[in-house]
């Protein structure tokens, strides 16, 4: 049995581990662009110099050999022939497969601005990006980041701590617009601003001005006409799934490669998992990319078990969950915090603990089900909220949730019951 996995990050490695649990004999090959397996979620810390490359490695050297895995690193897949069951690499090598997993992840979306192409313009998806940003930081002063989503905010926070000037440009009115509500968005905004990040909300970027001599960035111009001095531009405004060769091979794809609950694509024995895959998000019932690490790992496991002849299926699947720390304040966003439905009830609970730490919990409920939760400050028990959201269970009578709701209202209810 020949197992081939394209992509050596969360989903790919999880699948490989599952295959090797039950099949120590079959040939297992991993083809990936990365030189080794590392934590993609910590790239911002490498970019700022806070963490070394070694510190973010997730497997020691030689692990693949120990597991009997042929690890073809630094390679890109160019073509896929599903009839003959072969994969063609960019160096013209071909690799044959019996069971294939496509776990190629996503790439940075560069907005089509005038002047976007050129040096010192990066995304932050790979180690190369992170090292390039770190290198640029040795001489460059002004870093401008487009996109105040998860990647943009974390990078901004890290870079400003490293001492460079950071500008953060975002179309919405506050950072992390998908994860935060207005109140917490304003607080996050203030925290970044207090740390020295210059924030630009509500205006799209228009043009990147480059120096005529060496094409290095000089300024980012916004649609408002404002020009932001920029030495390095980082695009954190979205990602697109790496589906090129898959589409050409006839694998059904929309935003990502379409899979079923066993991670199978429309082609027999071809699986997809991780950020590249598109499946139903349990939280909102929509088909979308679910690009978060734990979900990629879970999909990878399901794919691996099925590839090795077992039977597993995706049960809970969502990308709508984020844990982030900005300037020492933790917050966790679960489910749909923005674009809430009008029929949902919003419950806000603010308190200050005995050590003076302020926390906010915002819950949205629809009848007796918890739809989303935003925990700011004190994030204890977030896992319990997560479980309630993804299972959709009845939370009435559950003290964790009832007490988090309007306490005064409860007092009145108690009175009326008596």
């Amino acid at each position, binding site marked *: 049995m020949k197992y081939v996995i394209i992509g050596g990050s969360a989903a790919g490695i999880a699948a490989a581990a599952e295959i090797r649990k039950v099949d120590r004999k079959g040939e297992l090959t991993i083809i990936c662009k990365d030189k080794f397996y590392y934590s993609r979620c910590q790239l911002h810390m490498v970019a700022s110099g806070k963490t070394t490359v070694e510190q973010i490695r997730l497997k020691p050297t030689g692990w693949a050999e120990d597991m009997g895995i042929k690890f073809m690193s630094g390679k890109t897949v160019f073509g896929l022939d599903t009839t003959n069951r072969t994969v063609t690499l960019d160096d013209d090598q071909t690799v044959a497969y019996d069971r294939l997993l496509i776990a190629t992840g996503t790439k940075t979306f560069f907005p089509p601005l005038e002047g976007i192409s050129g040096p010192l313009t990066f995304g932050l998806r790979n180690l190369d990006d992170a090292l390039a940003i770190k290198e640029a930081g040795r001489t460059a002063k002004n870093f401008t980041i487009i996109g105040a989503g998860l990647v943009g905010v974390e990078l901004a926070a890290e870079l400003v701590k490293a001492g460079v000037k950071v500008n953060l440009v975002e179309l919405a009115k506050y950072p992390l617009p998908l994860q935060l509500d207005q109140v917490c968005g304003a607080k996050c905004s203030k925290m970044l601003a207090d740390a020295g990040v210059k924030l630009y909300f509500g205006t799209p970027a228009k043009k990147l001005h480059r120096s005529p001599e060496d094409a290095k960035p000089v300024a980012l111009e916004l649609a408002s006409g404002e020009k932001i001095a920029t030495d390095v531009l980082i695009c954190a405004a979205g990602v697109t799934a790496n589906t090129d060769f898959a589409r050409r091979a006839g694998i059904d794809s929309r935003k990502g490669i379409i899979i079923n609950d066993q991670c199978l694509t429309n082609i027999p024995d071809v699986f997809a998992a991780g950020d590249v895959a598109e499946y139903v998000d349990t939280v909102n019932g929509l088909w979308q990319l679910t690009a978060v690490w734990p979900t990629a790992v879970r999909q990878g496991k399901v794919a691996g078990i099925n590839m090795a002849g077992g039977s597993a299926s995706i049960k809970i699947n969502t990308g709508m969950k984020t844990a982030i720390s900005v300037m020492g304040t933790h917050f966790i966003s679960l489910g749909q915090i923005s674009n809430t439905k009008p029929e949902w009830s919003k419950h806000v*609970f*603010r*308190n*200050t*603990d*005995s050590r*003076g730490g*302020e*926390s*906010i*919990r915002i819950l949205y409920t629809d009848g007796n089900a918890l739809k989303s939760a935003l925990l700011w400050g*004190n994030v*204890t*028990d977030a896992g319990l909220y997560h479980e309630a959201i993804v299972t959709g269970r009845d939370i009435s009578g559950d*003290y964790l949730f009832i*007490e*988090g709701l*309007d*306490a*005064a209202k*409860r*007092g*009145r209810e*108690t*009175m009326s019951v*008596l």
Partner: protein
Amino acid sequence: MKRCSSADSCFGNYLEKRGDINTAFDRLEDQSVKCGYGQNGVCCRLCSNGPCRITPDSPKGVCGATADTMVARNFLRSVAAGSACYLHVAESTASRLKSIASGISPIPLRSEKSVHELAVLLGIEGSSTNEKAGRIADAVLADLYRPRIDKMELVSKLAIPARVKKWQELGIMPGGAKAEVFDAIVKTSTNLNTDPVDQLLHCLNLGISTGLYGLAMTNLMNDIIMGEPEIGIASTGFSVASPDYINIAVSGHSHSVFAGLITLLESDKGQQIGIKAGAKGIRIVGLTCVGQDMQLRASASGKNVFVGQAGNNFTQEALLATGAIDMVISEFNCTLSGIEPIAERYKIKLICLDDVAKQSSAAMLNDVKGQELKLAEEICVIAADQYRLRRSQITIDVPEHGYDDVVTGVSEKSLLKLLGGNLTPLIELVKNGTIKGIAGILGCSNLAAGGHDVNTVALTRELICRDILVLSAGCTTGGLANCGYCSLSAKELAGPGLKAVCEKLGIPPVLNFGPCLAIGRIEIVVSELAKALGVDIPQLPVVISAPQWLEEQALADGCFGLALGLTLHLSQPPPILGSAIVTKVLTEDLVNLTGGKVIVEMNPAVAADKLQQVINEKLAALGIGV
């Protein structure tokens, strides 16, 4: 993550809004898991071989103490502490009375009438008001300081003969009150008294001195110094604190400690200190029982000075966080530790006048007899300085909260006056079934029994629905008042019989006796009822409840109620359930000794049923149709 709820929904809403402060309502959750050993009284920390707990594997302490010994010892020690607290207040009041009467303290005695009435009651003679007042004080202090072997002399003057006889039979007539407390501490120390019944009897003994001296006598002395209660209308709630004035919040139980301050503030000289600082004047805002005592006597003292009772003890953190309070003066409990960080944040000056109530960030001022007006002036100047310092640096956010039509000022005397001079009208109403009984809803406010005042308000509502007249004293009253139960409109919540009585007499279904000290006054009413009917107290259709009792003083109060032979309801049990003997004595056997009995029931509706059943049994025994 949760915040404790409150029966006072307006107050609860304010807490929701003020998520930026940490109060007891926030801290309750993290403390919600209780140690079972502590809860049941079977943890003993007396000696270095401990701490010991009674567990399935270890049914005795290292010394051999059983659960019964541990529980009884812990309970007696708590009652002793509670008794000591109230006796401190009685002592403080008596020595102030003495100082005023002998001309040392330059403060008036507001009610000469009260001096003469009390002198008659106690059998004290004198050629002048001051001489009588001084001798009253002497008599009280003499009893408090008596050695244990000498029985206190005023007991038989303050209690009805039937009760005195019963107490003599049981051997629980108290000797010197302080000595009794002292020996209770000795008894409950390591390897001394291990007899649970002896210890429980000592608890009753302490209850008697708590009730007659700590409660009743303190009130009667306060009548003299600060004036008698008169039924009237008052405002309660946070809204009483107007930012236009310099607001001094008072916390404690000894009204007489503030006699000098009130006297000064009633004068132009006192108010000018505030006016010079840029305010309209200086006002006193009530917190805890001393505020309720001021509210009680508002017609006799503190006019235009005392603005009203803001709320009961657990509202104090939020009150300070409104920013409208410039200073807090404390001379006793219940001043929460939680106010210290809030006082710091809002730049509120904390003053303490008695070291028993010294908080770490409070400034201790010396309260010297004879210097009361000087001290008052010093206090006003500090308050004015604080006002000037803080008002531009903080934000003030006072919610609209409370009621303006609260009926207050009920005492045994003003109640009699309302009824036309004697208790006959009330007795008739009970005899003809219009009023189905009388219940005292007494004592503290707490958070653990279902929420802040939740159990108190629910039980009160259950009782008045059943046409049972409620007399209330303590933080219970503060909570009930801020939920509208002491307003005339509350008659709509009462059953038809009680509602008709409310309309006829112009009273609410809950009679507001004021501070927890006034539990002693309610028990004077109960004694008067017994006298009028020619029976002993256990036979009366009267029950008492401390639905949200909080602390040791409440346990001492409870022991007084039990010594009087009343049925006492509690929602949360005291830490006694670990002992079969103690539990049985208090809930079953005691009824054959003093006639008293403890009922523990958390559910207010069920509790009301049980209490009504007790009342009905007593009515039946009296031959009154049910």
